[in-house]
């Protein structure tokens, strides 16, 4: 039921939780709790996703084709039978890149307006 390859731009701007989840999955497949932990670590504990927010986001992202649930299990010693692992799709990656591009442009504009301290 996934949408038929829409343009990545059509999903922008991404909700913050969605972007963070995509970032958490950028390097490896993770299960839900690992995503929460990764996001918390990445943001120095500033963003702690609740279980509800996480799985609502995951549900929508599955529907949008940003993620898939993966059948490949990690190494047996790390595997937890009950857990579901998620993997970012190529579409998910291009959406994340598009979002990053959008944010970069935004920051560039902010900098031109003198809102951002630093270079130029």
């Amino acid at each position, binding site marked *: 039921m996934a949408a038929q390859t829409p343009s990545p731009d059509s999903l922008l701007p991404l909700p913050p939780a969605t972007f963070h989840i995509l970032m958490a999955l950028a390097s490896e497949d993770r299960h*839900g*709790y690992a995503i929460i932990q990764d996001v918390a670590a990445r943001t120095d504990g500033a963003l702690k996703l609740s*279980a*509800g927010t*996480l799985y*609502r986001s995951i549900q929508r992202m599955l529907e949008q084709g940003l993620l898939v649930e993966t059948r490949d299990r990690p190494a047996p010693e790390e595997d937890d039978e009950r857990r579901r692992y998620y993997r970012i799709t190529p579409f998910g990656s291009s959406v994340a890149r598009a979002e990053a591009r959008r944010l970069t442009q935004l920051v560039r504009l902010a900098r031109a307006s003198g809102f951002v301290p630093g270079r130029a």
Partner: protein
Amino acid sequence: MHFYGLLLHVYPASFRAEYGEEMRAIFARAREENRGFHVVVFWVATVFEVLSNGLAAHWDVLNQDLRYSARTLARAPGFAFTAVTVAALGIGGATAAYTLIDYVLIRPLPFTEPNRLVNIWETVPSSHLGELELSPPNYRDYRKAATSFSSFGVFAGVAANLTGAGEPQRVLGDAFTSEIFPLLGVHPVLGRVFSAEDLKDSALGTLVLSYSLWQELFGGDRDVLGRKVEIDGIPHTIIGVMPAGFSFPDRDAELWVPLRFAPIDFTDRTNWYLHGVARLKPGISVSQAQAEMTGIAARLARADPKELANIGAHVVRLRDDISPRTRLLLEALMGAALCLLLIACANLANLLLARALARRGELAIRSALGAGPERLARQMLTESLLLSLAGGLLGGLIAYVAVPLFARLVPNALPWGEAPSIDTRVLAFPVLLTLITGIAFGAVPALRAGHGSEDALRDNARSGGGRRERLRSALVIAEIAACVVLLVSSGLLIRALSRIRGRDPGFRPDHALTLRTMLPFPKYDKAETRRTFYNRVLSSARQLPGVTSAAYTSFLPMVMRGGVWHVEIPGRPQDVAHQESASARFVTPDYFVAMGIPFLMGRGIQESDTREKPWVAVVSQSFVDHYWPGENPLGRRFKFNFLDHVVVGVVGNVRVRGLERASEPQVYLSYQQAGDAEWSWYAPKDLVVRSSGNLLALVPALRRIIHDADPEQPIADVQTLNDILEDETGARTVQLRILGIFASAAFFLAAFGIHGLLAFAVSQRTQEIGVRMALGARSSAILGMILKRALILAAAGVVIGTALAFAAGQSMRALLAGVSPADALTFAAAVGLCFAMTLAGSLLPARRATRVDPVIALR
């Protein structure tokens, strides 16, 4: 942990099933990280988090379902359009009908404590007169003796020539005693209402305006109080203005004057013209008041047995005082609307059942892909909801258009203020019914089918399932039956209408123009003044090109139905209980020619029939048949209103009381034989002009002629005799049009239902048909098989429908003008139409069946 499990029930079940376990695990870990006081904070945060995310998850699902429904419906636009239209027709019709009924029969009247308001009538049992108004002396006596009422007033209608505020005009209003306004609990927006002083015979004239007349004549000027206008030439001071929307006793009332009595008014106990209204004392019931009034009436009858033998009083709640005819019309309307709603629901159910069957495969696939039953149910519910809401919206629109049309059905039964508007609560009922239909026939079977999982996947949509097939057949039979009922009801009313239209009114309605010049009194008290006016108008009118005759009469037939006088034939015994009466009309000589009423014997009224000559009467054939059957009436004498008259001529019968009721015999008197200020109410006022030319072209010339005769004289009710006759059947035409709309909607819905059922059956049985054909069945046999099925359905529907239609016809017998509720022609036509419809509906599916290619079907 347990509590968190409970909390998770806030989420949609599908979401819970999918992620519940992992969420518990994450919750457990987070729970361990918080100790001591933090636990409390953690729990509060968790509850908030679950509530907000749970609702959001529901919203997500709804959104997803709506999008999915919109997509699936868009993929089946025929189904979506049909389902919505079908639902809208049913919803719209039922809502409009119920809105009207609510307005006329149910809604409380806009007065203070309306349940304590009653009408009071006099009754004369064993006479054809039924309920009568009160006479002044009886009102006086009832009022004096009755203790059930906190207030008891009377009123009488007046038609006034209003001058002194712009163009002279004719305005309808009522004369009220001082009790009426306070009794209703309505207060003026400006000034005051009548006091007991205003009712004294010697007091100066006073007048209360309706809001609309105030706006129209004075532009809402607040300085209107104290202004003087003339009513029938008598000065009246404006003392008050009633609030917008107030109207009593009916919508036509635009002004009110005090009702006054002169001592002479209290002499005649049979002068019934006062409408009684009273307010019950708190705690007194209608039946208690009725019992008291019956006792008082009996005492009156004992005291004056000569005039009041058999007299009675009838107390009826104002809200319930609605003519049986109006009630019947509304009930018929509601019946028709319910029939249509039933058909619509049956049709919708059939559509949905077919769709559910067709979707078994889709649902089975979704189920196999992991969609739980709850998720599918939710999806189906959303779809039903979407269809019902769209149907409700469109239905509301239909009702909005239909209510004003329906309201014309009962024009006089809507006395209270503004036009009815659609109530959303009223709309809710049919929408709910459609929704239930949607759920019962759309969601449930779809789910049942979905449960069959592998079975459904395997044989997809091949087997229809006998039970469901029977249900669908039953629905189609119900549709056909309801359709027969509506067709027969419409047919009976068409027959009644044509029978009534076919009745001879007694005059020639073509080529005659009429208008009313109500001569005001006392300006026209003198008989000579009146004669001068009539002769000026009539002689000038006869000069107009094309005019062949012109005449004046007291009242045109059907315009005024009453106006009857007491008849006494010498040598015939008097019987109070069976009063002999005839309608009385003063006419000018040319009247019978102008009206086209045939002469049968003797002569008409002549210019020489003056006050000094013996009083003459021209009577109708029915008068002769009643009083002197088989005898020569010419030269015979009788007392009419206690005065001697001699019969000089006989004319044809006229249906004075309209085409649908029996009329009293008619007596025509010479306009010159009414004296000064005598019978002013009967003074000729209706002008009838017969012309061979264009009637409407006469109007400006006639206006000029009347203006020349009396510049202050207003002209009203310009219409042709044909218009008057049309008005007689106007309500029926409206009624028929409405029922016709219902019947044709039902007809097409039923045809569609049959078509849908058979088309589906054929597609379900493609394989079977293929086998039969492969085994040598000829296409005519296949055709016969399908048609047989259709005819069995039609026959079942027609049998049930005919029985119901007969019952419906019995209950609306009063509307049928003598047409039998079992009218064979009507039933034959309705049954024939239904079979034709069945054949038409089954044509396409049958053709498709005969074209089944065995090779493809069996593949």
